């Protein structure tokens, strides 16, 4: 049975009609047009669909949209301010941490969840924080450099 719910995405409240089996990932991309959140494995293995809910990095492919009602959802679209990229996004550009780009939104959000809690993480802490995000292009080194640089810049 369809239900009317409110989803708060990047501070904007959307009223949507959803069926219970729809995942947050599907509703973000297909109903609300937030296509920056990527669908890859759709089974919790790859981290491409990572969003932040109430301050924690989670997988939108394993979250039911109806259960995200009333929570603060942050997606990649909420990171930049106008034309100014978020420092993490800028660091990814500066350090060449992007190749095909498909894993990038998920990685940036995992990095944001980390840096919001721990602005100056060690390399080991950065590695742990992105342990659930797969990148098949870069070999990760430049991604680690970018997140570390973004952390240093925030201080």
């Amino acid at each position, binding site marked *: *049975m369809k*239900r009317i719910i409110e989803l708060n995405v990047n501070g904007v409240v959307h009223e949507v009609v959803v*069926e*219970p*089996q729809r*995942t947050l990932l599907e509703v973000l991309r297909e109903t609300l047009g937030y296509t920056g959140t990527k669908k890859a494995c*759709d*089974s*919790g293995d790859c*981290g491409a669909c*990572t969003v932040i809910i109430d301050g*924690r*990095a*989670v*997988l939108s492919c*394993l*979250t*039911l949209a*109806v*259960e995200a009602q009333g929570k603060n959802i942050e997606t990649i679209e909420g990171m930049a301010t106008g034309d100014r990229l978020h420092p993490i996004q800028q660091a990814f550009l500066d350090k060449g941490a992007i190749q095909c780009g498909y894993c990038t939104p998920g990685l940036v959000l*995992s990095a944001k*969840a980390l840096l919001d809690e721990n602005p100056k993480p060690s390399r080991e802490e950065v*590695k*742990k*924080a*992105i*342990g*659930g*995000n797969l990148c098949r292009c870069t070999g990760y080194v430049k991604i680690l450099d970018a997140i570390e640089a973004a952390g240093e810049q925030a201080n």
Partner: protein
Amino acid sequence: MRPFEHVDATSVSDAIALLKAEPDGTIIAGGTDLLDLMKDGLASPRVLINVKTIDGLDRIEADAAGHLIIGPITTLARLAEDARVRQDFLLLSEAISVTASPQLRNMATVAGNVCQRPRCWYYRGTFDCFLKGGNSCLAVGGRSRDSGIFGAAECAAVNPSDLAPALLALGASVVIENAKRRREVPLESFFTAPQKDRPGFTVLGRDEMIVEVKVPKQPVGSRGIYLKAMERKTWSFAQASAAIQLSRAEARVTDVRIILGGVAPVPWRASAAEDVLRGKVPTGELIERVAATATDGAHPLGQNGYKVKLAKALVKRGLAMLVDNSRS
């Protein structure tokens, strides 16, 4: 996913009444295993009963006797971060720190982790294996590198939990409720190996719910360790793991629990190995003997003999580290 109804439960008794009224209903907590199973067609409940809307089910507290009481929908991440857990039950934090990925630890719950379905390539894939009504276990004589080496009855799939062996090493129990009664079940008798006449993975009835996980206070100076062998450094299920809790008085071992993960359909208690150590002074030679005893009775299949060596090595290393640390 097949369409289903989704109901927000308002209380434990409400959730239990819904379970009873709806034979095709199931509880959803973190959903990390359940939704994956549903996407793969391995579970197709008609009703999902959301228990995250029930107040107080995510508490972490100590009771008057100093036992740790964990609410069933406490996420793995919150449990691992809890100051009391880090102080007195470090084994739990250690086990969680190597479980799944950060995102999954932020979502997955304690009771959901304990109740997760087994891992096997045939079961999770598109094969008519024993668990899906097939005649026999396909891993026997087939791809068996991830299969169990102990305790398989008719299925060689393993219980993949990291948290469950750690909880067992601490002597934890689960408090279960149904409409009529509340009972406490030691985790040691909670898990079951699936068999033809008893297909489940735990003793949890279909109209029952875990309402609490209880971890007894450990003796002063008791220490634990969780070691996990993985095919890569992160986000991987255990090839084998060892959860060990050791208590000593002076030099002698007063109590020890050794639980192996990823090697059997249930978290596997190495009781005979514990008996070798209990009451003794843990010398290097004795630790060797304990580790060898821990894998007594193993029956590896064609491709998983390496798990016998891994399990033995983890027990040996874990005990050596615990003994070293408590000396300093």
